[in-house]
């Protein structure tokens, strides 16, 4: 119950990438992804360069590549869509064995796969090297409205509490002989969802009371200011810098 399992993404470590302030990592990630997306997909070599850059970052971070590879599974829906594109797009066709494939579709699929995979991999590196709460501090540092940051913080804290609650309700339901086998079971599932909503709402009210009791007056106190040294800024700039050079070259060629 609750105890014992860590966050699914974070990989504990002490590499320079782990130590870098979260807001720099976020900026670096966004810049990298934008540059990758802006690169014309016909410049195949540019994507090889991006992949090499990212591989270097992974190597420095000491996160095992297999750890990241397993988590790349989230990309599967996009992969499926990319694989469909050569079949459903129109335009000049090429024959590959028995298959009749659309050329623009193939190119589109390649672009989607390459850019998507690079983006997901870069985000996974951020997730693996940054504690969730540091990520929140980073977002706050980047001037994301504090209400949004608070909402994300509460979500992080209470996701497991609410999942546990749902789990207990499911066990209690099934212990009384319930099986969600047909449409006739839906009303019971709907009232479970309703009950969970009410419970969460009431919990929200109790949390608010507990916060007021400790002097909360509408704003979270800012207790630690994170700041980055010029050296850290320079470090964080390496990846987007090299990516920018690659992109510029790819556009002019």
């Amino acid at each position, binding site marked *: 119950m609750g105890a014992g399992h860590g966050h699914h993404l974070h990989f504990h470590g002490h590499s320079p990438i782990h130590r870098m302030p979260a807001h720099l990592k976020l900026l670096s990630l966004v810049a990298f992804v934008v540059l990758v997306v802006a690169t014309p997909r016909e410049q195949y070599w540019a994507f090889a360069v991006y992949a090499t850059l990212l591989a270097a970052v992974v190597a420095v971070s000491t996160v095992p590549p297999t750890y990241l590879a397993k988590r790349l599974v989230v990309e599967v829906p996009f992969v499926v869509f990319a694989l469909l594109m050569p079949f459903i797009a129109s335009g000049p066709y090429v024959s590959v064995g028995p298959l009749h494939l659309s050329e623009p579709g193939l190119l589109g699929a390649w672009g989607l796969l390459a850019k998507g995979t690079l983006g997901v991999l870069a985000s996974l590196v951020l997730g693996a090297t940054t504690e969730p709460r540091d990520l929140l501090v980073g977002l706050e540092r980047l001037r994301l409205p504090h209400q949004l940051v608070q909402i994300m913080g509460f979500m992080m*804290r*209470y996701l497991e509490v609410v999942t546990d609650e749902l789990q207990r309700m499911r066990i209690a339901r099934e212990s009384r002989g319930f099986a969600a086998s047909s449409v006739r079971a839906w009303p019971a599932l709907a009232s479970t969802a309703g009950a969970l909503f009410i419970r969460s709402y009431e919990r929200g009210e109790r949390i608010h009371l507990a916060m007021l009791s400790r*002097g909360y*007056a509408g704003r979270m*106190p800012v207790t630690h200011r994170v700041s980055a040294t010029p050296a850290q800024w320079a470090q964080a700039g390496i990846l987007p810098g090299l990516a920018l050079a690659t992109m510029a070259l790819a556009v002019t060629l």
Partner: protein
Amino acid sequence: MSAPVLDVSGLAYAYPDGHQALFGVNLHVHQGERVALLGPNGAGKTTLVLHLNGILTAGAGSVHVSGLPVAKDNLLEIRRRVGVVFQDPDDQLFMPSVRDDVAFGPANLGVRGAALEARVIDALDLVGMVDFIDRPPHHLSFGQRRRVAVATVLAMQPEVLVLDEPSSNLDPASRRELADILRSLDVTVLMVTHDLPYAYELCPRSVVLSDGVVVADGPTRDVLTDDALMAAHRLELPFGFDPRTIPAP
């Protein structure tokens, strides 16, 4: 004698839906006392607790904390002086890490930097949870979470600690550990509980609240052995527990 830490006089309160929960409660708690607040479900115990730190505002009567009236203008100081530990630690611990959570209260009071860090460490040290400072609360056991919940309030250096059902859902070892911690603290305690052996073990004095009024106030042993009083207010000793046969703690 100095001003009582808690001074409740003639406190009455009705909820907005018209349900009257308190009918003139009088209660004094002095510096250093540990008092148990007993009573059946629906007696108004929680309502009374929510008046002590100004979450609810008295319909009639008054609440003073070390001489300071509970009123809108001094709510922040009142909430520093009265530390309430709620029943479900998941309600109390809402920050992503133990450190942030314990820092929340003192930070609201304006404490920053090294002083804040010192408060957090000291409070966690009092409940024996310093080693867990960087853990997220949902990775702790229930007993550990309850202890951290106590620390979040201790970090505000309250004059009185108000605990709502501190022993509920704890296994016997966690229950005993919490008792040891509460005994070791140099702070006035008001403890709302249904756990009568726990009240007897920790609190020399007990107050019984029933139907919104105080019906008994005296040494815990006398209250628990007054059979007529106990029966009249739906209080029952658990099987096998008889304060008459147990030496005073």
